């Protein structure tokens, strides 16, 4: 596998993406914006970005043309909530799991970006199945704050991080209660105290400003400075005596408090959701995104009124815990129908590895439209829930998970309907670069598909 990846890297280096113009023509194209697929459309990529997508797009003479007749073409899947790239193996494989820091002193200050390993097997496996970007969150350990998550791509190169410190992740439901010592009440007061400590430090922070570099989209985005470079660590940034957070942790919450960094809040039960809506009113600068929200349908109108986006579990339908008593697969559909901006993530659901299941889940939500009494999604809405939806939730709409002009050139050509699990990714582009689809798994298939003994052991087949 290493060999395969290295050779892929060499190929990528030999043909710089910047020079490429690629036209994917004649496909059944869905842009990920919520609309259905369009017949006979073209997707044009140049310099790693989407130039145009739709019918009647002119193909420049210098373009490399790929015929997608009979195929489906969509933006790459965006794993709405994941731990992709943080672990190669989840259990009992020392050194191969960086999802949480049980014995570390820090919480909110944790930044997952340095822990991402682009060469981990699950990145390749998900890439080969059309997952091109992922929101990667750390998991909590001894604090309600897990730390800062990143947005990554799954490309076969060493530059995985699209956006470091894209969001802070906090647990305010059952897990948060446990992290806080045993109750939700404790979690909430810890949360308020953390914001108090951040507010104190924010006096020493630099004024809010925008980046000068980057694409037009990026220029309008708030910048979260690397906390290691922050002035709030200096000796002049004084703190009260009665603090609970380390200086790094409190400083990491300054951009959250200032609304320069998204705050993903994991809650499931209806009453916990309402508590978060109250927090959003009280601390109006927070840019909150709800994560999980299995009982969201019970308070869907209130979530909708708050305008807070939700990254939900798609098909939770068991009262798996006391915070998911009302769980139903119709949750996502009911929230959407109520006007909630809802997309799909893999919340505590094989979140390091099985992100490719999201398109199956999305398809299941389409299937619900045929079940009497259930509320599902249209095909276009379901695709949006796993492409543009999570991107919009964290302010990256139009950049990833979309075929909007200017977006990252992440495109998948599918053998068929991507929301039907029987379809496969036949070609995957990330930032306009065609990706290798070989994985540890495909190599094993080649080695073992014929078992009869040969002149040399299996170990010599590669």
């Amino acid at each position, binding site marked *: 596998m290493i060999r395969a990846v290295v050779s892929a890297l060499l190929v990528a280096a030999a043909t710089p993406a910047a020079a490429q113009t690629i036209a994917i023509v004649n496909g059944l194209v869905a842009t990920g914006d919520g609309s259905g697929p369009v017949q006979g459309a073209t997707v044009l990529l140049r310099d790693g970005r989407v130039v145009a997508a739709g019918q009647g797009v002119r193909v420049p003479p210098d373009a490399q043309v790929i015929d997608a007749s009979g195929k489906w073409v969509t933006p790459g899947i965006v794993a709405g909530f994941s731990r992709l790239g943080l672990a*190669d*193996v*989840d*259990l*009992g*494989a020392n050194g191969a799991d960086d999802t949480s820091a049980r014995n570390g002193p820090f919480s909110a200050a944790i930044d997952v970006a340095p822990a991402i390993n682009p060469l981990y*097997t*699950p990145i390749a*496996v998900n890439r080969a199945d059309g997952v091109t970007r992922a929101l990667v969150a750390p998991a909590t350990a001894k604090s309600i704050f897990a730390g800062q998550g990143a947005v990554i791509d799954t490309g076969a190169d060493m530059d995985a991080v699209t956006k470091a410190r894209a969001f802070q992740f906090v647990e305010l439901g059952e897990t948060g209660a446990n992290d806080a010592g045993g109750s939700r009440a404790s979690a909430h007061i810890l949360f308020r105290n953390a914001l108090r400590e951040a507010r104190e430090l924010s006096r020493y922070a630099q004024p809010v400003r925008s980046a000068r570099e980057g694409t037009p989209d990026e220029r309008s985005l708030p910048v979260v400075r690397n906390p290691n470079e922050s002035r709030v660590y200096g000796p002049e940034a004084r703190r009260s005596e009665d603090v609970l957070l380390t200086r790094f942790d409190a400083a990491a919450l300054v951009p959250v408090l200032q609304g320069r960094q998204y705050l993903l809040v994991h809650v499931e039960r*209806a009453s916990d959701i309402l508590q978060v809506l109250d927090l959003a009113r009280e601390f109006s600068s927070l840019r909150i995104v709800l994560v999980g929200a299995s*009982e969201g349908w*019970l308070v869907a109108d209130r979530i909708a009124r708050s305008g807070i986006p939700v990254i939900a579990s798609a*098909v*939770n*339908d*068991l*009262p*798996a*815990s*006391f915070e*998911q*008593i*009302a*769980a*139903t*697969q*119709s949750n996502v559909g009911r929230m959407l129908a109520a006007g909630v901006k809802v997309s799909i993530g893999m919340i505590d*659901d*094989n979140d*390091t*590895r*099985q992100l*490719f299941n999201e398109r*199956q889940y999305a*398809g*299941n939500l*389409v*299937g*619900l439209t*045929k*079940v*009497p*009494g*259930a509320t599902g999604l249209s095909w276009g809405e379901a695709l949006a829930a796993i492409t543009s939806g999570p991107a919009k939730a964290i302010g990256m709409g139009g950049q990833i998970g979309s075929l909007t002009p200017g977006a990252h050139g992440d495109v998948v050509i599918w*053998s068929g309907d991507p*929301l*039907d*699990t*029987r*379809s*496969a990714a036949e070609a995957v582009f990330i930032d306009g670069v065609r990706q290798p689809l070989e994985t*540890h*798994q*495909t190599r*094993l*298939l080649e080695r*073992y*598909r014929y*078992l*009869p003994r040969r002149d040399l052991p299996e170990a010599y087949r590669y």
Partner: protein
Amino acid sequence: MVLNRKLSAAALAAFSLASCAAFAPPKKNAPAIHINEDPYPSTYVAYPGVPTAIRGATVFDGEGGQIANGTVILADGKVQAIGGPDLPVPAGVQVIDGTGKFVSPGVIDVHSHLGDYPSPGVESLSDGNEATSPVRPEVWAEHSVWPQDPGFSRALVNGGVTTLQILPGSANLFGGRSVVLKNVPARTVQGMKFPGAPYGLKMACGENPKRVYGSKGNMPQTRMGNIALARETWIKAVAYKRKWDKYYAKGGDMPERDLAMDTLKGVLEGKILVHNHCYRADEMANMIDMSKEFGYHITAFHHAVEAYKIADLLRDNGICAVMWADWYGFKMEAYDGIKENIPLVHNAGACAIVHSDDPNYIQRLNQEAAKALADGQRAGIPNLSEAVAWQWLSYNPAKALGIAERTGSLKPGKMADVVLWNADPFSTYARPERVWIDGALMYDANDPKRRPVSDFELGQPGEGDVK
């Protein structure tokens, strides 16, 4: 019958005691008293059904056959007939138009922990692993099953699961007995037990036992420890069986009963089927040799992530491989999981089975089979089709549970365990529309009252909701 046998044995024993006292003949062994092997018998009784014919649907018979525009007739709890559009439907039979829909045997999951690890997943209800000793063949999963687990209903209405095997967990080398259930709600587990289904023994190899006990400084701490302890246990079991064989043959003093050894004796006698949790190819080979060393048969390897590496060995030894479609990497022994595992095992001529081990995946086993089928076809594995793949969902599982003569396919005379799907069940968009168990309609998507609601969910938000 069991009761009668017990009574007559007791009567005989009493008679021989009396005769001893009266005539004082030369010392002679008292005849053996047979132990009741079914002390927690099934009380399941099928619910009444309406004679029903489904016409015009695509039918998977479960044994590899497919009928376009098929007809399936159910009555008296049994499949009465299956055929094409010309199959005559007797008068008085309710006819369901299945045009555009699909009919299959009910899905059978051979690996579930519903009831033992129910929802909600709280400590008080966590009853799946008797992780107090690596050798616990004396525990029976049925004694942990909470019939009010809401998961049973989800498996029925979303997954079309009509029969399932509940296994103890895999913390132990010998985890205990399994139980096979009909997915029909009841107040007691006895009320769900599949009548006459043989018991299974859950065994485990690999990481779990060595992690659970090794971390406590106990044996097993290694894979060699796993095997050594299992072998020592089988040596005891063989001796135990010998004692009882002699007793049953010659009578005399009844040997002391050992509940753990009773189960292993049942395995050695072929009455209890071995369901062996085992991921890695090399470990499966070790388990096969161990089974030969002690003279028992392994019915199925569960979670056989590396089955594709030894599919020939599994075929030659008549062992089923019970697999996921695409799980991998959640621990080291799952590192080499590949998406073509199921079709490769099938193609080698071994018995392939799709399983869940999960209260969510059990609701989508048809989709798991669909993924495996599609991956297999893309890899160029020959002779695969939807009808062939349905064997992984019902007939092969029924074989592994020892109930294939009674369910698992739509052969006349078999239990009418049937699903009507609203679309091709290999599509991600398909859902069960109706599910019959023993001919009784247990789920109807069009009838909100024809879906089970567990006691736990009564009066709670979402009671009776679509799930």
